[in-house]
């Protein structure tokens, strides 16, 4: 039985904990700056509230990192040094250089690294990928991915909105779809991006538009919105190939429309979430697959290199938005300069 330590107890740490509870793994404890959050979760799962990372590392087999993005690099390197396996919430790191160092360190130390790009585990996205892989629509040519919600809220110190920490919308939100586009159409060669907060720093909303050129010749259009009214969360995908077209829209396929009368203003969660009920949460499906990879050495559907490649695209998007020019990506198999 694997002993799991969860770092970060915000929305993602809480969600991962629920996932681990559905596996034979044991949640040993939590580590977080907001002590209240950590001790509430510790109580709920009958687990510890660790004072620091070293205490956690000496006690667990696996560290599940759900802390703010800019902290991933340092925490992962310390976990690797302790020889513990790692689950890491997306983005794998804040910069390509950091992500590369992480992947390299894990490889050299023979430590498992599983990056939680949960979109690959959403049934609609997984099904579309499987149909493309089965050749149902031929060769993908133009891919459109759209993910829209409102600006993430946080009780205090909103790191999501601090571009230095989160990478902003072009990284934090849209990395989901860079990864998915790569899963569908392969490695990316060029990135061109714009976003509202770069052009209009005082705007009350943010919205990103990114054009990816894949080495396969396919092109992808990625849109990310933090401009919708809470509690909106909607996604759209369209994969057009030379032998057909797949599309999905979360609004059009929502099995339930809630038109009941609300008393007062509807409460919205900190981070907008998809809400199409399924028997098992995609987050739980993900954690179960990661658990199998840890215990039985089964291959997960996402590799450390995938996590690195997604960060590289996100970083290029931020750079392109600054320069109004495309960014050409260095192939990562040859290592980084």
């Amino acid at each position: 039985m694997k002993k799991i330590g969860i770092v970060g107890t915000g929305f993602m740490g809480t969600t991962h904990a629920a996932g681990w509870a559905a596996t034979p793994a044991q949640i040993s404890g939590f580590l977080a700056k907001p002590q209240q959050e950590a001790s509430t979760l510790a109580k709920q799962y009958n687990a510890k509230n660790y004072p620091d990372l070293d205490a956690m590392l000496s006690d667990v087999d696996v560290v599940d990192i759900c802390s703010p993005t800019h902290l991933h690099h340092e925490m992962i390197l310390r976990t690797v040094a302790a020889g513990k396996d790692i689950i890491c919430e997306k983005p794998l790191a804040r910069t390509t250089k950091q992500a590369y160092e992480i992947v390299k360190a894990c490889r050299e130390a023979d430590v498992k690294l599983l990056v939680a790009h949960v979109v690959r585990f959403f049934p609609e996205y997984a099904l579309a990928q499987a149909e493309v892989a089965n050749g149902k629509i031929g060769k993908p040519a133009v891919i459109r991915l759209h993910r829209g919600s409102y600006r993430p809220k946080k009780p205090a110190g909103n790191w999501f909105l601090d571009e230095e920490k989160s990478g902003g919308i072009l990284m934090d939100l849209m990395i989901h779809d860079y990864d998915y586009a790569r899963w569908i159409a392969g490695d990316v060669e060029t990135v061109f991006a714009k976003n509202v907060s770069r052009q209009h720093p005082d705007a009350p909303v943010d919205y990103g538009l990114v054009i990816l050129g894949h080495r396969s010749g396919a092109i992808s259009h990625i849109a990310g919105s933090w401009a919708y009214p809470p509690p909106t969360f909607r996604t759209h995908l369209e994969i057009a190939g030379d032998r057909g077209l797949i599309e999905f829209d979360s609004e059009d396929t929502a099995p339930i429309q809630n038109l009941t009368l609300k008393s007062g203003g509807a409460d919205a969660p900190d981070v907008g979430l998809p809400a199409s009920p399924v028997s098992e949460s995609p987050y739980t499906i993900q954690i179960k697959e990661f658990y199998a990879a840890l215990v039985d050495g089964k291959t997960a559907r996402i590799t450390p290199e995938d996590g690195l490649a997604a960060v590289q695209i996100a970083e290029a998007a931020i750079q392109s938005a600054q320069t109004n020019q495309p960014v050409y990506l260095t192939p990562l198999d040859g290592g980084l300069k």
Partner: protein
Amino acid sequence: MKIGILSFAHHHGEAYISNLRNMDGVELLGVADDDTTRGERLAHQHEARYFPSYEALLEAKPDGVIICTENNKHLPLAEMAASQGINILCEKPIATKLADAKSIVDTCDKAGVLLMTAFPMRFSAPLLEIKKRLDNGDFGDVYCFNGTNQGELPTVYRDWFADPELAGGGAIMDHTVHLVDIMRWFLEAEVETVYARSNHIFHADEVDVETGALEMLTFDNGVFASIDASWSRPPYWPTWGGLTFEMVTQRGVVVMDAFRQNINIYSHDVKRANWAYWGSDINHAMVKEFVDAIRENRPPKVTGIDGLRAVEATLAAYESLRSKKSVRVKAS
């Protein structure tokens, strides 16, 4: 008021016949076509008078003509009509080359004839509603557009739509101008830079032009916009394609689907889903504006300059494909 149609190279020519016939005080003078077989056949089919040449039609003194030739053949007809003082509604894009587009505008200017570009989206009821609210300040500042103008392979209507010479390109030439014009109209700003990526994966064996295309534009007021111009709708899609955008503003997002007003039909006849449009006829409203502008002796709501500016942005997209950079639009 007599209006003539020059050429059926563009299939819209047929739609304009019924538009003109349903308009008070307007007479469809007739049609001419340099493809005699096509011209005679369609004239007969629509019970319209057929003129054996463009010259013959123009000699019959129409008040205006609608030019529906291939994209690269607009200029000579515009020159011919303008020289006889005849007003012009020209299919889009008004030309495939900057010099031709400029020449059409200048020729009409000098001749003092009215030149209107066939941008029917200016007359779309959903777009007019948004424009009204935009001008009313309901949305505050506009930040960006995420636009699509996707379609099926247009060779289903006419082969020349995918001919590099006659059409001037593929999906980019076909589908960039509508959204560019809508955004120029909404923003009252000009396109400053264009970045484009294209490919040739859909219908690779059937046509020799780009069929997939994504573009990113910036305007001189700081607004940016993406356009998906792809011919990405399969031939069994429930309709020809569509035009959509998300407009991101200070007050949130407006999601617009210009051709959403459909009924869904599932029939034994076609054995696939079919969307039948019941929204207002944009072509009718556009042709009516042409007629009204002639009648009232005033500039039309969409001009030759609008056609020229849209061509400039489109050609910048091709320039970006060549240079692999974001390029500045060459304003003439």
